[in-house]
């Protein structure tokens, strides 16, 4: 499943960069994060319980930073395993913009297998879209905090 979009921030590029390249901050954007461990600056892992409304889906996810060109491009891969469930994601961000405005073009290729998959695509795709939406909203919040603004607009 390939997703892409653009997110606008009212913050300088460096600020956005600092958020999306901080494993700890990014971890906090993940829906249902329960614990978090940093191995080195390219590898970290997290345990999450993805809130699915009818009950959570527990997963262990390991992240690897694949490429970075500060302050404009980063890509990472995430591999999650749960009970009989699998999630693989490759994602990339490209930042552009001037001054207080930053535009983040992002793309993600998400693969999910296992019991959630067997519920059917009709629920799977909207769920993924929705979780991505949550992440982006949380990123925006952290960007605001990093900027010193505190609350989101």
């Amino acid at each position, binding site marked *: 499943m390939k997703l892409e979009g653009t997110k606008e921030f009212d913050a300088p590029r460096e600020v956005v960069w600092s958020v999306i390249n901080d494993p700890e901050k990014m971890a906090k954007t993940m829906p249902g994060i329960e614990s978090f461990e940093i191995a080195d600056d390219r590898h970290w892992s997290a345990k999450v319980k993805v809130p699915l409304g*009818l009950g959570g889906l527990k997963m262990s996810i390991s992240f690897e930073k694949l490429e970075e060109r500060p302050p404009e491009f980063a890509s990472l891969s995430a591999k999650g395993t749960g009970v009989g469930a699998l999630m693989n994601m490759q994602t990339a961000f490209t930042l552009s913009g001037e001054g207080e405005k930053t535009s983040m073009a992002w793309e993600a290729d998400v693969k999910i297998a296992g019991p959630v998959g067997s519920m059917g695509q009709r629920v799977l795709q909207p769920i993924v879209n929705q979780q991505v939406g949550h992440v982006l909203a949380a990123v925006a919040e952290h960007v605001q905090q990093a900027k010193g603004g505190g609350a989101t607009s």
Partner: protein
Amino acid sequence: MLLREVGYARPATVEEALSLLAGNDGARALAGGQTLLNVMKQRAASPEVLVDLGKLAELRLVGVQGMTLDIGAMVTLSALMRSSEVEVSRPILAEVAATVADVQVRNRGTLGGNICVNDPTNHFPPLLVALDATMTILSEDGERTVSVEDFFVGVFETAVREGELLTRVSVPAGGGGDGMSGVTLGAHGTYIANAAASVDDGRWRIALGCVAAVPVRATLVESRLSGVDVDEADVRAAVEGLGETLDPPSDVHASADYRRSLTETSVVRAVLQAAERASG
């Protein structure tokens, strides 16, 4: 088949239900179970505790209060089909209930369950948006009402928070004319695309299912149709371009483009049905 281990409680009163929902982490209300138990069979999601609402008779009431039709969250789809109050005050609800899945599912499945699950292909979320419903949600802190616009949050997610319970769905009694149309996977099957439309006194509400995690209002079409005495050509003109504004999923049954097109057609057909009923 073969669920994970789960806790279970069967409260005798709504108060008990609320206390169970509030007092247990990961508790989830079990209404008809026609989605929830199937999700649990796949082990796709596993609530910690099921709070079975089966014995709460007060959630199974249907009544008309003034100009409002109140339907208890635990009213089954079969009961909806048989309700004289529904037949008199908002028959589209019974009509749509009759096309959900099959007899056995309708015998257990409830209106509250159908909307709280909010599977994007479910029938009632878009219909209730078109009917401008109001949801009553109860918790130990008291009662609150949520407009249908704010009710749907995501797949399997609604404004009903942990510790809360949807008790009632209210829709205006009467109304002008309602319609619902769509394409299903086989007769009475899962919707591939759908639209619900309702008109009252020239004001339209149109909602689309299957295109996002929550029902989507077709506000532009609504305003284009506003106050117009519609014929098919008008409706087609009003719907023109709707598909391009949508970002529907692409799956084995429909590409995003096909779903856009089906959605436009569904809107045309739902609107014409509603208009015909409004005039008749």
